[in-house]
């Protein structure tokens, strides 16, 4: 099963490679990983998407906890949560496709943020499924390049993952 794990860790050099190293050394897979400092610059927040059965996920969270630089973590999949991912996608926009792509962007509530006479760059946020659906909707020959951030996640409600 897919799990989305939020990690609060010391914002120190090497912390990221400890997490990445743990996953490769123990044979766990990482589907995506995003990390950036929080409002407290000494802390980083990481969102990690992985797959595994219950036992594997239990081991993953325990092993992550064991890393000295990890302060707190939560498996967001255990409760209701929100996930958002951002995508920048560059597509060809020529002739009849120009209008069609524009319409699709509107339907998906994306924004066109760069225009040339033959291409658009589109910015789009949403959960992974929505971004996948947009990519599917655009004819694949029109796509020049795609950049995705991987999802960030946060639990619903007043409680937060903080110190």
């Amino acid at each position, binding site marked *: 099963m897919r799990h989305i794990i939020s990690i609060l*860790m010391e914002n120190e050099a*090497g912390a990221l*490679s400890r997490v990445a*190293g743990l996953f490769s050394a123990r044979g766990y897979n990482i589907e995506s990983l995003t990390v950036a400092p929080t409002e407290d610059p000494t802390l980083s927040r990481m969102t990690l998407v992985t797959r595994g059965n219950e036992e594997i996920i239990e081991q993953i969270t325990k092993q992550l*906890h064991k890393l*000295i*630089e*990890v*302060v707190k973590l939560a498996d967001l999949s255990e409760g209701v949560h929100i996930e958002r991912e951002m995508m920048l996608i560059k597509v060809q926009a020529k002739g009849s496709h120009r209008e069609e792509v524009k319409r699709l962007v509107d339907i998906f509530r994306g924004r066109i943020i760069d225009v040339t006479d033959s291409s658009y760059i589109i910015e789009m946020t949403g959960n992974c499924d929505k971004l996948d659906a947009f990519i599917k909707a655009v004819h694949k020959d029109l796509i020049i390049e795609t950049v995705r951030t991987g999802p960030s996640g946060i639990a619903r409600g007043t409680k937060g993952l903080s110190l």
Partner: protein
Amino acid sequence: MELSGAGILVQCLKDEGVEYLFGYPGGAVLHIYDEIFKQDELRHILVRHEQGAVHAADGYARATGKPGVALLTSGPGATNGVTGVATAYCDSIPMVVLTGQVPTPFIGSDAFQEVDTLGITRPCVKHNFLVKDVRDLAETMKKAFYIATSGRPGPVVIDVPKDVTDPNIKIPYHYPKSIKMRSYNPVKRGHSGQIKKAVDLILSAERPVIYSGGGVVTGDGAAELTGLAREMKLPVTSTLMGLGGYPGTDRQFLGMLGMHGTYEANMAMHDCDVLIAIGARFDDRVTGKVKDFCPDAKIIHIDIDPASISKNVRVDIPIVGPVKHVLAEMLKVVRAHKNQPDREALAQWWSQLEKWRSVDCLKYSSKGGRIKPQAAIEMLHKITNGDAYIASDVGQHQMWVAQYYPFDKPQHWLTSGGLGTMGFGLPAAMGAKVAHPDREVVCITGDGSIQMNIQELATCQHFNLPLKVMLLNNGYLGMVRQWQEFFYDSRYSEVTVEAQPDFIKLAQAYGHVGMRVERPEELEGALRKMMEIKDRLVFLDVVVDPGENVYPMIMAGKGHHEMQLSPDCELS
């Protein structure tokens, strides 16, 4: 007090109470060695290879419970130490390893003797640090000792670039008395509800058994374990790492369990209804086939490391906490409990255990006119009253020590259990001898292993470490040969150690006493002579039966109840 980085480093070690430092100098640590030269409080033991330094620090830690400290230079100094760090990591040994690094402006430039020490050691340390600013040095040292010795102990590496130790840059020195880290808070006590549940379960058990591991030794829980087991008349078996955690000569001790464990221990595991795992991690050498592991048992698991719980085997009652505290609490709960153990069921269980014990699975034949390695170890046990510090290498001889040298006390058995590092024994014995100069320290080794760190014989002479080396010489890489005999139709591929050195002359060349014994009737005399020489290192080459195998054995993919017994020992 204003000190340079090098001065701070040495002063921190003193303030931490470190007495011995095992190391090897080099370019990146020259400033530190200059500070070592200027003082005489902190004793430096100059090894002959960096791997030896780390194993010696490890042996010191195992024999004292105090953190071992090693100092290595950058590049090859650090990489040579990695095997030692990984060895300590696998066995949860508290250790601080200081490595030199090229000056900070050169990091990443492929400078002379530069390696990414942090990157190389990351998977085999509890934690590691790169100190880039001399102002962070003292606090980092404190953190390193705190992390290495608390919770589940382990090695911590501190990588120190040369410019951080610059003698010309001095700053005020302050060593923190204690340290708090928001991201690291090891558990101090076990959950009282879980402890109560565990005691209820043990009191209701008809066929209980304790499976004790290295955590009992490193967690200083031997007295508490012994107290609880005796109070409740529980049979105790132990992992390789846990030997000495419960008195090995006591009737309630069933011997080691697992691949080369005793018949009674493994049968008890298979048939028990309540298993109490204490400071152990359900390693594959212990469990055998996981599907057949303790099929009828409810499992209680006490461990300081939550990640060890339900990792390989699901358990019913986990207790996260220091074994010493948890066991002491359990004993209190037992004494105040309204229920009594089922004495009748326990008596029946004990009579079954005695039946299994009567198989005498460690029996071996003395025929053939050659010295049996088992006999040599039993004789050493007799002559040393079972009281020596024993360091081993890895292979057949290691298993034979575990089987034939019962340890009554913790911290007397120094062996590389998790990583299985050949070459560990001699330097580890040095560490123990440094810590306990007035006690007998014997390195029991094989003709394969001893040659992996034999250069340390020079260190023993240099620092006058009159330990004993007992070489069980069978002319083979014996454990590999045994597997080739069993599983590869006796195709002995690259296991014959031909062109052996003359170990007598070799010992003498290093300034030690070298002896050899080949005949069974001369064994006792030779061992007595070895132990009687107190002021010199004695290297005794014991020429043993080359065809001897380690029994009993659980073959790969088999369960505890499917042991292969020795041909010398038949089930009645």
